[in-house]
């Protein structure tokens, strides 16, 4: 019944958020990308990852689009705030969620001013994603 290394807890498949959605993960840290990718794959199969803000903007310029963007604040080349401003200026309406390893309370205003819908402290957890999705569900 259990495969090699499989956990013995009940299945983590999240049912409840029926709408299909796509996500873009923007973070320069490969450990974070891997964790957030695994986390979000409990909720959706449509996941893409990029390493910095510029790659995210380029993706959108090339015609790609995602329902939710999880964007790190501190990244080289183009950081999260800059990329958010750029995307909003391009007319992008995707839900943008900031993720930061700094103290959230002092940064929340920066995030909202740049055009983000929500922000969380790293790392994301199952609970944070669930609460985000139920919030988005309500607003739709």
């Amino acid at each position: 019944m259990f495969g090699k290394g499989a956990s013995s807890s009940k299945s983590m498949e999240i049912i409840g958020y029926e709408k299909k959605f796509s996500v873009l993960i923007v973070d320069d840290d490969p450990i974070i990308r891997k964790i957030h990718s695994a986390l979000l794959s409990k909720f959706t199969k449509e996941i893409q990852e990029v390493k910095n803000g510029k790659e995210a903007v380029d993706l959108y310029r090339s015609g790609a689009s995602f329902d939710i963007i999880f964007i790190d604040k501190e990244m080289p080349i183009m950081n999260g705030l800059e990329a958010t401003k750029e995307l909003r200026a391009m007319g992008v309406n995707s839900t943008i969620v900031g993720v930061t390893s700094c103290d959230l309370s002092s940064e929340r205003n920066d995030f909202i001013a740049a055009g983000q819908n929500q922000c969380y402290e790293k790392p994301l957890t199952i609970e944070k994603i669930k609460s985000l999705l139920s919030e988005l569900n309500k607003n739709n």
Partner: protein
Amino acid sequence: MEVGQMQRRLIEYTKSLFMEGILDDQFLQLQQLQDESNPDFVVEVVSLFFQDAEKLLNDITRALDQQSVDFTKVDAHVHQLKGSSASVGAQRVKNGCIAFRNFCEEQNVDGSLRCLQQIKQEYYHVKNKLEALFRLEQQIVAAGGSVPMMELSF
């Protein structure tokens, strides 16, 4: 040793790591993300952390060894190490990094060197513990058993 015994031993061992503050809740989050489609997830993430941490510790050591220490650089490395240790639940390493950043702010070389020593110790400690944990898991799986899950309520 039969499978049931090994499983109990693993649970006790994992619990002790939490009690001692070596690991925190984030490690449990990682275990929750492991499943049939991602069976080696925890080992993979932790391996990334080991690689990242060792490189950063070397970078920090070199930076502190300079005639004129560039604390902006040191702080950037420590910030990264804090992030990756927090991601895997290596609590003591993460806390060491938080303390380290204060010394960077003060541009305190001696304090920084002492802190670095401390963090290196904590890092090798958690590395040994995690490697032992993974070996226990491997033994269970090799004996045909499944790896028991820790409860999230703690």
